[in-house]
C-alpha cells in the first residue's frame, strides 16, 4: 500500500508564477482580440477561404481536444488499471484534461461564423451529424471529469473513484473516436474517408496528452522546488515512447493502405512526395522530430531516468503532433477534389488546382490564446486547490523503492505501460 497522499495547493506567490500567469493572460487577451477582429471584419481577414474552410484555429482546437482526452491517461492508468505509482498525479491529470478541452472548444466556438449562436448549437440537433454527437461527448466528458475529480479529492468518496474513472476512460475513447470520425466520415475528400482515422486519433491523443502532461508536471515541480523522483520520470519516458511508436504504426498503416489503391496515389504523392509545405512537415515535422527523435529519447537506455530527455521528447511530440494536424486538416483540403477523373479541370473557383493557404496572425493568435487559456486554468487551479502531491520523490510514490530493489522496479514499469 502506498503512503497516504498529501495533496497541497502551491503557494503561487513567486515572481515566476506571476510572470507565467501574466504571459498566459496576455496571450488570452490577444486571442480574444483576434476573435473579435475576425468576427467583426468577417473571415476574409484570415487565411481561410472558400477552398481552405478550416484553418489554423482548427489545427490548434483539434490538437487540444485530442490531447485533452489523452491527458487523462495518467488518471486512467491509476484508477482503471490500478497502478498505484500514478495515483498521486491522477487529480492533475483530470484537471489538465478538462482544461485542455475547454481551451480547444473555446477556439472552435470563437472561430464559428456566428459564435453568438452558440445557444442554437446547444438547442438544435441533427443526430446524423458526428458534430452534434461531439457536442454531447465534449460536454459529457467535462461533467464526468469534474465528478471524477470530486471523487478523487473528497476522501469520503475515494472508494468510488475507480468506477467513475472507468466511465471516464470509456467516455474518452468514444470522444476521440468521435473527433477522428469528423474526418473519417467525409466521403468526398481523397485524404479523409478512412475508418482508421478513429483509432489513429485515439493513439494520437495518448501521445499528445502525455507529452503536455509531462511538461506541466516538470514545470510545476521544478518551479515549486518540490521533489520529483526519477522513478516516475522513467515511467513517463517509457510510456511516451510506447505511445509515439503506436501513433507511428497507425500512421504507417493509414498511408500504406492508401498507397495500395491507385485512386489515392495522387493525394499520397501530394503529401509524401510533393513540392509543398505538407511534405516537409510530414518528413521533418512528424516523422523526424515528432517520432524518430522522441523514440530514441524515450527508449534508448542512454537516456534512462533523464528528465531532460523526457521534456525534449515531449516538446518534440507536441511539435510533431501540430505538424500532423496541419497535414491532416490543411493538407487534406489543399488537395483538389477529384470530380472528373482523367480530366484537367479549371474554373474561376479554383477547381483542379492545389489550394493555397497561409496562416494569418489572428488565426495563430486565437489558437495560442486557447492554449494559454487551458494552461491558465491549470495554473490557477493548482494554486487554489490541492491538486499536486507535496512530493513525487521515489520513496513517496513507490512503496517498494529501496536500495536493494532499485533493479526490480524496472520490470513493473514496463508491465504497466
Amino acid at each position, binding site marked *: 500500500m502506498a503512503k497516504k497522499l498529501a495533496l497541497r495547493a502551491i503557494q503561487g506567490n513567486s515572481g515566476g508564477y506571476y510572470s507565467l500567469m501574466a504571459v498566459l493572460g496576455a496571450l488570452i487577451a490577444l486571442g480574444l482580440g483576434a476573435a473579435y477582429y475576425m468576427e467583426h471584419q468577417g*473571415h476574409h481577414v484570415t487565411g481561410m477561404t*472558400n477552398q481552405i474552410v478550416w484553418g489554423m484555429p482548427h489545427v490548434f482546437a483539434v490538437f487540444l481536444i485530442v490531447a485533452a482526452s489523452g491527458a487523462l491517461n495518467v488518471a486512467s492508468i491509476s484508477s482503471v488499471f490500478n497502478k498505484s505509482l500514478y495515483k498521486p498525479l491522477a487529480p492533475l491529470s483530470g484537471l489538465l484534461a478538462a482544461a485542455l478541452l475547454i481551451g480547444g472548444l473555446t477556439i472552435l466556438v470563437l472561430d464559428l*461564423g456566428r459564435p453568438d449562436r452558440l445557444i442554437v448549437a446547444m438547442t*438544435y440537433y*441533427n443526430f446524423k451529424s458526428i458534430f452534434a454527437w461531439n457536442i454531447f461527448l465534449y460536454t459529457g466528458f467535462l461533467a464526468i471529469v469534474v465528478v471524477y475529480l470530486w471523487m478523487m479529492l473528497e476522501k469520503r468518496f475515494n472508494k468510488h473513484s475507480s468506477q467513475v474513472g472507468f466511465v471516464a476512460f470509456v467516455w474518452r475513447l468514444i470522444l476521440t473516436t468521435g473527433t477522428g470520425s469528423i474526418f473519417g466520415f467525409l466521403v468526398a475528400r481523397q485524404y479523409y474517408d478512412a475508418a482508421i482515422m478513429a483509432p489513429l486519433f485515439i493513439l494520437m491523443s495518448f501521445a499528445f496528452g502525455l507529452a503536455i502532461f509531462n511538461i506541466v508536471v516538470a514545470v510545476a515541480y521544478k518551479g515549486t522546488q518540490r521533489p520529483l523522483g526519477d522513478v516516475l520520470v522513467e515511467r513517463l519516458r517509457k510510456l511516451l515512447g510506447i505511445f509515439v511508436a503506436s501513433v507511428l504504426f497507425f500512421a504507417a498503416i493509414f498511408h500504406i493502405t492508401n498507397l495500395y489503391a491507385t485512386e489515392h496515389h495522387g493525394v499520397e504523392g501530394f503529401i509524401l512526395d510533393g513540392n509543398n509545405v505538407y511534405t516537409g512537415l510530414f518528413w521533418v515535422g512528424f516523422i523526424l522530430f515528432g517520432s524518430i527523435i522522441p523514440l530514441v529519447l524515450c527508449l534508448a537506455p542512454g537516456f534512462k531516468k533523464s528528465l531532460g530527455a523526457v521534456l525534449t521528447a515531449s516538446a518534440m511530440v507536441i511539435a510533431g503532433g501540430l505538424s500532423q494536424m496541419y497535414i491532416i486538416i490543411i493538407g487534406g483540403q489543399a488537395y483538389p477534389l477529384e470530380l472528373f477523373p*482523367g480530366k484537367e479541370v479549371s474554373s474561376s473557383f479554383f477547381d483542379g488546382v492545389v489550394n493555397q493557404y497561409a496562416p494569418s496572425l489572428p488565426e495563430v493568435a486565437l489558437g495560442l490564446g486557447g492554449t494559454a487559456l487551458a494552461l491558465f486554468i491549470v495554473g490557477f487551479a493548482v494554486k487554489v486547490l490541492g491538486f499536486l502531491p507535496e512530493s513525487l520523490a521515489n520513496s513517496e510514490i513507490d512503496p517498494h523503492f529501496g536500495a536493494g530493489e532499485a533493479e526490480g522496479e524496472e520490470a513493473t514499469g514496463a508491465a504497466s505501460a
Partner: protein
Amino acid sequence: MSEQTSKVNEYRRKFFGKAAATAAMVGLAPGVFLHTIARAKPADEPVSSEVRWGLLIDANKCADGCSECTKACNDENGLTGFGRPETDAQWIRKVTLKDKRTQHVTNLPLMCQHCANPPCVDVCPTGASFKRADGIVLVDKHICIGCRYCMMACPYKARSFVHETLTDQVPDVPRGKGTVESCTLCVHRVDRGDIPACVEACAASDNGAMLFGNLNDPNSDISKRLASEASTQIRGDLELDLGVRYQNI
C-alpha cells in the same frame, strides 16, 4: 359658409376619396395578385415530395466563353463580389475540362447538385442544412452557426461561406456574414412557377444547354429526355442520387 369651412369640406372630400381608393386596393389587389400566381403552388401549401426538381445540362451545348448563367445567378441572387476571388461567393461556376489523353475540351456549369442524400445535410450539426420535400437543398440562415462542416463534406465544392459584411441583399434571397450558402435552384422563382435564372439566361442565349423540370413527372420534358438519352451524374460512385444530371461529359 365661411371660407374656412369650405376648405375643411374640401379636405374631407379628398380624404374620403383617398380612403375609398385605398380600401379598394386593399380589398381587390390580393385577389388580382393571387389570380396571377394561381398557376404556381399556393403559398400556404407545403412543398410536396410528389415533385422532384432537377436540371439536365448538355455540356456539348455549353459554349466556350459564355457566362450568361453565372451572370444571371449573380444578378438574381445579389451576389456582388469584393474583388477577392478566394473568398467571394460563387453559387454557379463555369468549369472547363480537358481530357488528359485526347485533349478534348468540354465546358459545363457546376453548382449545388441537389442530392437526394446530401452529405452537407448529414454532417450539419444544427440541421441548418436541409432538403425540402421537392428535393431542393437549402441552408436555414437562422440556425446556421457558420461551422463550415458542410463545405468540408460537399463533394462538389458547391458552397460558399460569407466572409464579409453584406449590404443591399435581394429581399427574396436571405444572406448574411458568417453563414454558409449555395445555389437554391432559385427556390423563390420556382415557388412562384418560374424557372431558375441560370436556365432562363441559358435559353435566352440560344445555347439551350440547361433544362429544368420535375424529375418525378414522367411526362415532363426533362424526364422524357432522361428516358431517351444517355446522361450521367458527377461522382455517381457516391450514389447520392443527384438532382442535376449531365450529358456529353
